[in-house]
């Protein structure tokens, strides 16, 4: 396992409020990592920095074997380099069919002329069918994404993430609003992914994190408070203090 993403000494502040404070984080491929922490711990800001949405004031973010810096890349370039992101609130193109949603996400040239000339090949068709199978939406391919249930939208977004064929997946609260059955399916899907990909899961729900059965990073006030197995971190006094109040 080699390091795929290395965040070191990153700080960012908004109007004087330090959202991220000297944060360091590394993940290899393949690996599954859960990031937990109370509200305002900087989980979402951390994802924003990695995906290029927010520029840090300090620190470095390096990615891949060559250790390229992500800080000078645009969101689109970072996505093309193989970092996919699922938002907390499911964001799919509600006005379009599930099939169209997946087609847009498929890993193909991203330029406007390529998009104009794009033809759906047999390989594309197979890949979309395969993805739909994976996310349990085979029967819903022609439905408008806006008519899907909350859990289905979450899956569609995960499907779109997979369609991009990323190396690193940043997944923000994938199980929110899902039934127990759906959660179990999501857990299995993520675990299977983590056998070949680097997967970072931000989650509130401790039960869900336990099922993921992976290394856990606890964030608090913008920096890493503890890291290790779930049992190890929840035994940590500082973590208990932060979670249960002092």
């Amino acid at each position, binding site marked *: 396992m080699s390091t795929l993403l290395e965040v070191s000494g990153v700080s960012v502040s908004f109007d004087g409020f330090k959202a991220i404070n000297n944060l360091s984080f590394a993940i290899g491929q393949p690996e599954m990592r859960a990031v937990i922490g109370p509200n305002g711990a900087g989980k979402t800001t951390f994802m924003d920095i990695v*995906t290029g*949405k927010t520029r840090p004031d300090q620190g470095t973010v390096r990615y891949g074997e060559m250790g390229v810096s992500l800080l000078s890349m*645009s*969101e*689109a*370039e970072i*996505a*093309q380099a193989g970092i*996919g*992101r699922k*938002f907390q609130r499911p*964001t*799919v*193109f*509600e*006005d*379009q069919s599930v099939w*169209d949603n997946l*087609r*847009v*996400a498929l890993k193909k040239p*991203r*330029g*406007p002329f390529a*998009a*104009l000339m*794009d*033809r*759906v090949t047999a390989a594309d068709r197979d890949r979309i069918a395969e993805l739909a199978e994976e996310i349990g939406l085979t029967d819903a391919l022609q439905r408008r994404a806006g008519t899907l249930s909350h859990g289905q939208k979450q899956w569609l977004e995960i499907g*779109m993430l997979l369609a*991009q064929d990323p190396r690193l997946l940043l997944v923000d609260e994938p199980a929110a609003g899902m039934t127990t059955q759906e959660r179990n399916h999501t857990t299995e899907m993520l675990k299977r992914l983590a056998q070949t990909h680097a997967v970072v899961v931000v989650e509130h729900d401790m039960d869900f994190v336990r099922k993921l059965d992976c290394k856990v990073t606890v964030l608090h006030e913008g920096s890493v408070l503890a890291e290790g197995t779930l049992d190890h971190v929840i035994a940590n006094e500082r973590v208990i203090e932060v979670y249960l109040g002092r």
Partner: protein
Amino acid sequence: MNGSIFTRNKSVPIFIGVLFLFAIAVTVMSSAYGTGAISVSFTKVLGMTLCLCLAALAMDLVWGYCGILSLGHFAFFGLGGYIIGMWLMTARTEAVVRSNLAAAVIPPTQAEVSQATALQIFSIVGGQDWPWMWAASDSLVLTLVLVVAVPGLLALVFGWLAFRSRVTGVYLSILTQAMTLALSLYLFQNDTGLRGNNGLSGLQNIPGAETIGQDRISIWFFWASALALGAAYIASAWVVSGKFGSIIRGIRDDELRVRFLGYRVEVYKLFVFTLTGILSGIAGALYYPQAGIINPDEIAPIASIFLAVWVAIGGRGRLYGAVIGAALVSLLSTYFTGGRAPDVNLGFYNIEWTDWWPVLLGLGFVLVTLFAPKGLGGLVDYLGRKDKA
């Protein structure tokens, strides 16, 4: 999902069929080629309406599909008109000057003709030389190139600056209003070389067709406008049908998601903005020879707002909605503001439509926005559902 655009988008064959039948009907009723039931001036109104439909189609692409509420697209329309106008006016004036000088004992040199033509055109604003921007006005080929290139270039530069800085939403709308206002104010100046508030006139006289009556020319331009609209409709339907269409609708609904899928949103926006700027320019170049005159007032900010109103009333994001909205509202405008609509005397108040039409239109816009956000095109959905039930 692959296949011809005619089979993929059902509105295309229907639209082209209706447009063709309409063009045939107008020709059959024209005074030059048919019964004469439609006057020459009304033929021109219809031809001009088709050009406005073309501009509305462009507006629907940029706003209805890509979510960029540009309130400056009429600037491109006006630019197209000014560019074709320069050629029309130069050629026409030169012909007049030549015939005036024909009686002279010594035949005039080319330079003398050119000098006299310039004097004729620019004396109204106190000028007597050709301004630099008229350099291409003696060549039809160059003029046609510029009709596409100038609006396209303005859209490209403006769009690049705006989209690169991620100006979106209402700020972008304001910026585009500022663009068309600035252009309009600039053209109002007498010394800009485009005859200030006088604008360009006599554009209905087509060089080389002096012996052909306006009755025939009006039908030719009507057909040219119909062809342009039909071609643009097919092209637009093609652009929005495939993956490109999915992406720009995605940009409209959730720009961030598209970005995180790895698409450079600003490049797509620029593409659509420039394409629609060019379409608007072509529409303007066909419109003003039928209108006969263009002046800076044509590209006042309100004109671009009307364009958005038409598209909203017709229904956004469905191409034919824009065409229906533009045709209906602009024809009604012509009727109500043309002085032919009878006043309504309520006893205590006399409703004069020339004053009250804008109020009615504004009210209609508010009502559509509040109660029928899909516009008139929503009716098509409604009827379509009924058929199936």
